[in-house]
């Protein structure tokens, strides 16, 4: 059985059973039901994407898993340590980059070790030269890397990513996808990423869940290897179309006039 108490020791050696177990989880604020009897298991080392429109409850579910809004007893059990990277980097502007990362280790006693681990992790995200920088001196992409390092450094069993790349430009986002996959492979923690970007979900996750109206509406396993998920691949194209349809997005039909113009031009 999964233990209820989070601790660093259990996170490294993955315990048997899911790392997170959500059962019949309800959540309402005032009169609005945000989550309705959600069930979800996340296995150790699994990469799950939670996809949905704004207000579908996906961020609320993440906050329950992170215990940021403590859920009712028994509905959400997480074994091992969690960490979160948010949409905004949320660094402490008055602490240097290395210290920002080291702060996530405050529960371990030795200061020197905290700073060494922080340096190692910042090297992993490619920011060796920014250890001594102030957060306000970083670009958006760099700040988000620090935020990832901060989530990673405590060696979590479950890393929660709340739309972490949606504020970045498209090229930086691709770099960040690569980075997250590398980090995930190296550290083999479970990741739950909340996003509204279908392609991001397909590029990153093993399993994609679409949420709608506070429920998990549909679920896909993505079997192809991560470097073999081109949108042109029929299997991926099919999954992508299904996801969009589950999200209530219907691709615009081809414009017949445009074709005519093209023919005219060619003639």
């Amino acid at each position: 059985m999964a233990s209820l108490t989070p601790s660093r020791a259990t996170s490294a050696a993955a315990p048997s059973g899911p790392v997170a177990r959500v059962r019949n989880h309800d959540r309402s604020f005032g009169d609005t039901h945000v989550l309705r009897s959600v069930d979800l298991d996340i296995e150790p080392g699994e990469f799950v994407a939670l996809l949905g429109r704004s207000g579908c409850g996906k961020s609320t579910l993440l906050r329950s898993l992170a215990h940021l809004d403590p859920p009712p007893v028994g509905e959400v059990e997480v074994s091992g340590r969690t960490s979160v990277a948010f949409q905004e980097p949320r660094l402490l502007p008055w602490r240097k980059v290395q210290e920002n990362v080291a702060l996530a280790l405050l529960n371990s006693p030795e200061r020197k070790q905290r700073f060494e681990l922080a340096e190692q992790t910042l090297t992993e995200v490619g920011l060796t030269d920014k250890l001594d920088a102030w957060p306000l001196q970083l670009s958006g992409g760099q700040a988000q890397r620090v935020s990832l390092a901060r989530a990673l450094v405590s060696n979590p069993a479950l890393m929660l990513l709340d739309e972490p790349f949606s504020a970045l430009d498209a090229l930086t986002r691709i770099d960040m996808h690569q980075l997250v996959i590398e980090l995930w492979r190296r550290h083999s923690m479970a990741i739950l990423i909340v996003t509204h970007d279908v392609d991001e979900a397909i590029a990153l996750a093993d399993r994609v869940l679409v949420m709608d109206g506070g429920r998990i509406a549909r679920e896909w396993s993505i079997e192809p290897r991560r470097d073999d998920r081109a949108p042109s691949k029929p299997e991926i194209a099919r999954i992508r179309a299904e996801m969009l349809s589950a999200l209530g997005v219907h691709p615009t039909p081809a414009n017949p006039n445009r074709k005519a113009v093209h023919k005219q031009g060619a003639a």
Partner: protein
Amino acid sequence: MRRWVSPIAIIVIWQLLCMGGFIDPRTMAAPSDIAQTAVGLIKDGTLGAETLVSLQRVVLGLVIGGFIGLSLAVVAGLSRIGDDAIDPPMQMLRTLPHLGLISLFITWFGLGETPKVTLIAMGACFPLYLNTLGGIRGIDRKVLEAARSMHLTHRQQIRHVVIPGALPQTLTGLRQSLGIAWLSLIVAETIPTDAGLGHLINEAREFLQVDVIVVGLAVYAALGLTTDAIVRHLERKALAWRA
């Protein structure tokens, strides 16, 4: 450099008007006489001794008032009950013109050091209270939430998020408190006293020594400027992260 031209010109004109006999020496002394008096007062040790007494009053009042203001702000800023209990009376008290309380303090504490230090403490308390409370309330809740997501304890959150987050405003409050402390000192020292810059000025008034009065005022001004510069320097050091 160009910003010094007009102040120097004013002093030169002032000097010339005095030398030409256009200004009655009982109304205002010439800059040269004032400088001479200052040198004399420094040499015989009077100015140093009196300044030290005044400085002690300000420091003591500032420390006591600042400590009270800061503590109340921290309690009000961190707990809802504290906020409900502390903030309403503080908001009412702060509208009192505290310098007017001097008569009350004299009836309570007599003519010694206590009413003076109390008046300074009372004045210094509010800017630090208001600014620190504003600083704590203004802390980005998202950053606090990030600290919680890192499993920091309540105490660690205060140390690494709340205090440094409120510091810029607290330092602004400190500068305002210092300004008010000096002002309160000047008023407090009009209470008959046997030492301090106010004593020097009161005595000079008895003997119509305008030059000594001006020297006393100049020292008040210089002390105010100096302490303000010290806090500004502190601000630059402590807030380097805002670069």
